[in-house]
């Protein structure tokens, strides 16, 4: 299968989402540094706290989520904006959440690392490796309810060394659950390179330890991701059990904003630019004559507008009432 067999609409939708993610992340970065100069201060500005952006890793999210329905669950990591957007989470509410506003997904209680949208079955968290077991639970629910939804657990290459990875893959395999484990390999866990933390060249090889399919795919090529993801999702829906996918990507930015990246060799950043999946996809669409420069630039403009609207919505929204902090620990009143 190749790009030719994918409908144009689908391809353009993928392009739209990839470009929207990139636009979003780069715009957010600008806003993040507002109020943080001349000296970077993590607690200052309209977006305080940590910020982990996904620029360069869009293909993992888009190549996977294009196959998903709203009922399918995606459980992301600390770096999850791309998956949230690809899963269809409302951009305005998400942005408002990141700005800590009352109109945010969680009314400002969750924040950038804790984005929840139940209507889209999307969630994420700041604990590395936490997504794996949670996705298994969604798989159990699907099985018990006789539904055909699937769950995608996202984890970085660093997360694949966490104990939960092993436990969850084993459990999903033993119970043959509709779960896709997606390892987003950007080669780094903050400053620790994968070669120094991981005893195997490709995390997809670890699938053998659970008797399930494992595939490694080049994230520079969103079509390749699309194909691998399609197979895994279909397999899961057919009730044939879990899969493990490694997407090899590159981080275009630091681990978090403000990361001096002193640990990172220059060549690695250069490679990242070369492997940029958005640029590559754009080139492919044009070279293959699938889309015209005009079509793409219209999409880009629409994205820029949408992102700007989301930012404006967030900026204009009110902060929550302080007393809200004390409410909502327990469901049913407290």
């Amino acid at each position: 299968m190749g790009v030719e067999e994918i409908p144009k609409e689908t391809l353009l939708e993928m392009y739209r989402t990839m470009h929207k993610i990139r636009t979003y992340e780069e715009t957010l970065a600008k806003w993040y540094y507002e109020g943080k100069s001349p000296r970077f201060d993590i607690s200052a500005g309209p977006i305080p706290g940590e910020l982990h952006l996904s620029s360069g890793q869009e293909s993992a999210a888009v190549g996977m989520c294009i196959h998903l329905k709203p009922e399918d669950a995606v459980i992301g990591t600390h770096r999850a904006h791309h998956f949230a957007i690809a899963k269809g989470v409302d951009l305005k509410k998400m942005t408002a959440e990141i700005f800590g506003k009352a109109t945010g997904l969680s009314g400002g209680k969750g924040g950038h690392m804790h984005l929840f949208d139940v209507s889209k079955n999307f969630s994420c968290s700041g604990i590395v490796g936490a997504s794996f077991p949670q996705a298994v639970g969604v798989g159990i629910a699907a099985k018990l309810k006789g539904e055909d939804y699937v769950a995608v657990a996202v984890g970085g290459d660093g997360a694949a060394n966490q104990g939960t990875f092993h436990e969850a893959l084993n459990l999903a395999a033993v119970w043959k659950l509709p779960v896709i484990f997606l390892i987003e390999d950007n080669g780094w866990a903050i400053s620790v390179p994968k070669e120094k933390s991981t005893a195997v060249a490709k995390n997809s090889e670890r699938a053998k330890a659970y008797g399930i399919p494992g595939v490694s795919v080049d994230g520079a090529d969103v079509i390749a991701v699309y194909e691998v993801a399609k197979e895994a999702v279909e397999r899961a829906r057919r009730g044939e059990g879990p899969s493990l996918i490694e997407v090899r990507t590159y981080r275009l930015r630091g681990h978090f904003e403000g990361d001096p990246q002193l640990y990172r060799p220059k060549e690695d950043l250069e490679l990242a630019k070369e492997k940029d999946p958005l640029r590559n996809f754009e080139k492919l669409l044009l070279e293959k004559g699938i889309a015209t420069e005009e079509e793409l630039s219209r999409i880009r403009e629409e994205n820029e507008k949408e992102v700007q609207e989301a930012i404006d919505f967030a900026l204009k929204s009110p902060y929550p009432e302080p007393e809200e902090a004390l409410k909502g620990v327990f469901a049913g009143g407290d």
Partner: protein
Amino acid sequence: MARKLPMYKAISEAIAQEMERDENVFVMGEDIGAYGGIFGATSGLLEKFGLDRVRDTPISESAFIGAALGAASKGMRPIVELMFVDFFGVAMDQIYNHIAKAHYMSGGQVKMPIVITTAIGGGYSDAAQHSQCLYGLFAHVPGLKIVIPSNSYDAKGLMISSIRDDNPVMYFFHKGLMGLGWMPSPEEAAVEVPEEPYTVPIGEAKVVREGDDVTIATVSRMVYEALWAAEELEKAGINAEVLDLRTLVPLDRKTLINSVKKTGRLLVVDEDYMSYGMSGEVITSVVEKVGNELKALPRRIAYPDVPVPYSRVLEKFVLPDKEKIIAAVKEMVQ
């Protein structure tokens, strides 16, 4: 119709009735199927409900407890057993960073109707890694309801309440109260239990013995040590009121304070470790409100800050018991 039931049967009956009432309820854990749970809390369930809803797990506590979150996010109401509370350290992240916080972090979008059952308590030489109580540790982190029944009536009613609660509940049963036959248990713990389902509200302490001279506040197996002490104290002309707190979160501070206002004296008895735990919280909750109304300094008898020793003579020396309670109360009343 009511019959005398040991606590383990009251618990499994409660679960069975809720599983019949609500198909979203299911059970996971180690040896909870054919074995019926090492302490019998799930006895008979596999036969009634089959392998889909009564799932023996691998020894992967992070995976199956984390899976409870995923399943709950899809409308299931999982009950998961952590065989001994002593093992919490292998799965605590999923419990307290995710299950306990998801409702709040999601701004109320997500509900977590999960019951985590777990065995507590010593007294039979199971030593440092199989004899602890630790409910004080769980009560410290927000988002978990803490339920600790002391008899079969409460055990059934509180279990049904726990399952129907839309929040995560940690349900602690004391091995030495289950009435297992092979493990000593006070006869008084096996009381009349109605056959039909009923609830005991979470968050209400119970005065299990009325008295005017001193309030003995406690939970779980120590309720009996307190009652036995109270009987002897009565012979010495001292009337102790015994309070079974039953739940630590929410803590029924009203009943507690009212009792102490009446008696003017407070003794807390706790099988969990002394420092930074239940005994300090209960005493502080009282003295910060009515410390000026006390006739004696408040006291506590708790497990001293030592790991649980193995040898019977050593364990007996450190476990709170009737004699220690009698001695303390006598000093307080003098």
